[in-house]
């Protein structure tokens, strides 16, 4: 059903292809950039991706202003400040984020400080605080999951104050998302699986929650189809560039979807479990996704049932009686998780992920206070959350 009112926004230019990276210098030029600063991490550098990146500049004449390759797995205000200072010292005029969620969020943080000419990130934390158009930002994701290359948000922790600062603003949207399979070929199977299930949970939650709209739906279902068709191949044959590119596309599409429709209980539980027990986000998404759907079933059976077409294909959809489609959707996800677990050991319950039972109450409490819960189709109280956690244990 068409919502009576909705907004959808995605101005990010997507460049996708086997050698998409080669377009980077000319794209930067179009954006008016002359001295980009590159933000990346040791993992990316160690995998030789920075070299591919530098090679792409070739004889373009573009100068790389600076490279910072030490972003930690959790982006922090300290690192953002450090990079900001390097950016300024080297008179850079734009940013290129080469990495996963943490690198991209860090680059977004740096962009806030250099644009606002400030050294205090906290001032800009919150929703729609930012008011200025930012420096050019090109994002080259090296995982296929977070969707940060197309989202309006960033999360950066303030270590001194021990808080996580959320930022949400359309100004945070990168200018370009560059999807090149060479950037994800070396992603290990377990990471590939975890990030894919992160993307899957973005798309699925986007499709069933209260802020869904026809635009986000289109992106969500397209992402789901590509993920379901490619995820097992990506995990078992990581060197297949076509499959990697497909997964990168799916992740970006899922990002566009949830960035416009928001997520739900799966993310709420995942954020809480991540915060308290440090479970990687993708792992948490994989664990909670079917349980979250099952919890939401009474409120959105039809929407979950419709997903079957995109998850399992037209033959299975047509054959499954309407009354059982939602269950079959959940069942497909359950079996997909098992397959991934068998292929690469991706945990399918909290115990396997190292969570101890005594933490469940604390996670439940944190989950019901997580902002992701707002757009979930079914209200969740602490007992509901605890019941889901016990099942997922």
């Amino acid at each position: 059903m068409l919502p009576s009112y909705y907004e959808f926004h995605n101005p990010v230019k997507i460049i996708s292809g086997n050698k998409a990276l080669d377009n980077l210098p000319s794209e930067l030029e179009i954006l008016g950039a002359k001295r980009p600063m590159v933000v990346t991490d040791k993992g990316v550098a160690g995998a030789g991706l920075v070299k591919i990146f530098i090679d792409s500049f070739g004889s373009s004449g573009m100068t790389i202003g600076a490279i910072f390759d030490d972003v930690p797995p959790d982006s922090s205000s300290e690192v953002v400040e450090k990079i900001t200072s390097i950016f300024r010292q080297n008179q850079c005029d734009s940013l290129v984020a080469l990495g996963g969620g943490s690198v991209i969020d860090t680059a977004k943080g740096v962009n806030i400080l250099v644009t606002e000419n400030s050294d205090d990130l906290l001032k800009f934390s919150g929703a729609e605080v930012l008011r200025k158009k930012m420096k050019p930002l090109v994002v080259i994701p090296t995982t296929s999951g977070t969707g940060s290359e197309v989202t309006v948000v960033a999360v950066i922790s303030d270590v001194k104050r021990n808080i996580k600062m959320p930022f949400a603003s359309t100004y945070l949207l990168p200018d370009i998302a560059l999807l090149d399979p060479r950037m994800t070929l070396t992603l290990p199977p377990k990471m590939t699986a975890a990030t894919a299930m992160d993307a899957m949970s973005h798309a699925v939650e986007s499709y069933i929650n209260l802020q869904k709209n026809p635009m986000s739906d289109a992106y969500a279902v397209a992402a789901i189809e590509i993920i379901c068709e490619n995820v097992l191949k990506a995990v078992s044959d990581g060197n297949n560039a076509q499959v990697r590119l497909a997964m990168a596309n799916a992740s970006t599409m899922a990002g566009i979807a949830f960035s416009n429709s928001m997520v739900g209980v799966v993310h709420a539980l995942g954020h809480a479990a991540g915060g308290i027990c440090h479970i990687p986000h993708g792992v948490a998404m994989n664990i909670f996704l079917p349980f979250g759907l099952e919890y939401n079933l009474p409120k959105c059976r039809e929407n979950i049932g419709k997903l079957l077409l995109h998850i399992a294909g037209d033959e299975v959809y047509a054959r499954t009686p309407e009354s059982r489609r939602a269950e079959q959707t959940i069942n497909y996800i359950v079996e997909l998780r098992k397959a991934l677990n068998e292929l690469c050991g991706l945990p399918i319950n909290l115990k396997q992920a190292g969570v101890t039972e005594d933490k469940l109450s604390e996670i439940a409490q944190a989950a019901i206070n997580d902002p992701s819960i707002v757009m979930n189709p079914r209200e969740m109280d602490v007992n509901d959350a605890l019941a889901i956690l016990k099942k997922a244990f």
Partner: protein
Amino acid sequence: MEEIKGFSNKIIEINLTDKSWSVSEASIEDRKMFLGGKGLGMKLLYDRLKPGVDPLGEDNILIIMPGVVTGTGAPCSGRFEAISKSPLTGIIATASCGGPFGIQLKTAGYGGLVIRGKSKDKCVVWFDHNTVEFRDATDLWGLDTVETQERVLNSSKTESKKEATLAIGPAGENLVRFANISSGHRFLGRGGLGAVMGSKNLKAVVAKGSHYKIVPAEPEKFQKVKKKATQFIKNDAVTISLGKFGTATNVKFVNKEKMLPVWNYSFGDHEHAFRISGEMIKEKHDTKVHTCKPCSIMCGHKGTFNGKESPVPEYETLTLLGSNLGVFDTNAISRFNDICNKAGMDTISAGGTLGWVMEAVEKGLVSPDLFVSSKNSKPNELSANENSSDDLDKTQSGTRKYSLMFGSINGIEEALESIAKGEGFGKEMGLGSRALSHKYGGKGFAIQVKGLEMAGYDPRGSYGQGLAYSVANRGACHLSAFLVSFEVLLGLLKPDTARSKPEFVKFVEDLTCSVNALQTCQFTMYAYTLQPMLTKYTPKFILKNMMLWLPEVAMTLFDFSIYPDLFSSITGIKMSSKEFLKSGERIHVLERYMNTREGIRGRDDVLPDRMLMETIVRDKKRRIVPLKEMLAKYYKLRGYNEDGIPIDKLLKKLKIPSQPSYSV
């Protein structure tokens, strides 16, 4: 220890009605013509069983036969055969098993066991070389196959080694039409022979053997043949793969060729197929050898499933109770396998029947409300939702509704248990897919032939297998002529053509019958026919072309002389390859003839509509089995008339008496 040179023609005949027993003698002529095992057993049944008897009535007869190879120490010589009339199909059923009973039967001095009549009370038959005891089985009734065997075996360890059992579980007792008979951890799987035992109130048979030693008539020749046979087995790639990964080694190529039964044979492949492959199972479940004894191929394995040691489900179980139901979770399939094994049920027919039920629910032919199980059943894997039909229904005396849906493991354990117990709709499911489709409709997707559910190879990818399924004597059985091996596994015979299939189906049927009459494992057929020099060194492209265009000539390139050599070195009876193959033909035709006396005609040599009219989903070649054109030629080659009945001339040629003697 006394010796039996080669074989014994003494048949122990037990009548359960009056608890009497006697020993008869099979003729040497029958031994030569029917070899033993399935063959001689078929002849014994022909001479004893009148057509038209109720398979579950007093007049049905169950025959258990070792072969001349059984117990000799030749490779894969632990096998024996059962022959009876099937309560599932209403025609002759045969089953082969690698359990310990065959060797004990033979070393008790017998070349066969005939069980007839019906016991008034629940009983166990115990026998050794010179006595028979009829023991009370009241306390055993209701026990599963494992407990039953433990209880009936002698408690003394030394003595128990000399004893072996045939036992049924609750499924046999409750006359599930596809109940099987266990012997050790192996089974006489197909055709519902467990229900035949159950109908006779016979819970178990114990043979105490080890009284005689089986020695070959020509020891030197036997040792030479045995050595050669062992070498062939060691060198053959297909056989090695079976030893390494078990029968699940077939999953990969079957999936690749779109022949994997998925969702009741609607799809031919699945992206999760790797989860049930032999390679994955070996890696994930830490498998070890767990075979028939003695065995040189080692295809049977056990491994760790659900935290405990269990047999690795065979290919057929992985497909029929797995992929065919959309299930690829090996731990779950192992649980289904355990339920069937303990209850004593054929996993192929159980899976084929559940496949039909799931589709019938989809199509609205069967109401999901029928699925109610006893209160002991477990909650589902995911069962939180309010609207689910899976919730415990406390108002109805603690029963619980369960659901059956392709792709979901939920409900399958409950369904299998309700079949074994004969509870509620389980009782109807226990009649098999043919009976269900007659009652509820949906014959076109009842994947069975002559009442026997099809094995796990979709014939649309292997036309010869399609013909073989349609004409196999016991129903849609892959072991009558496993054409998949030539057509797909070995790539010797173009699979999607009718050409030369009738010839090869007949050839393989005849050879298989002889192998099952020896009796040794059918899996020796790869090594014994492919490793001899003539076959091995004929260039593949020549062999392929000859098989396609000159099938009769190509057949002469398959040197299977090791089988008649085994027979003659053990028995001292001369046997050429030609005679050996002719024995197979005789056995096959006799079985067909017996079936025609039960009413089988050409109209019964069919395939499910799905294989004849629907293509496999996403099969670009859009294949359907061209059965009609193959069938006409097959009848002609066989010497059947147009209605599929063996003509008198054929019976005379094969020296099959058109009227049995009924002398016994």
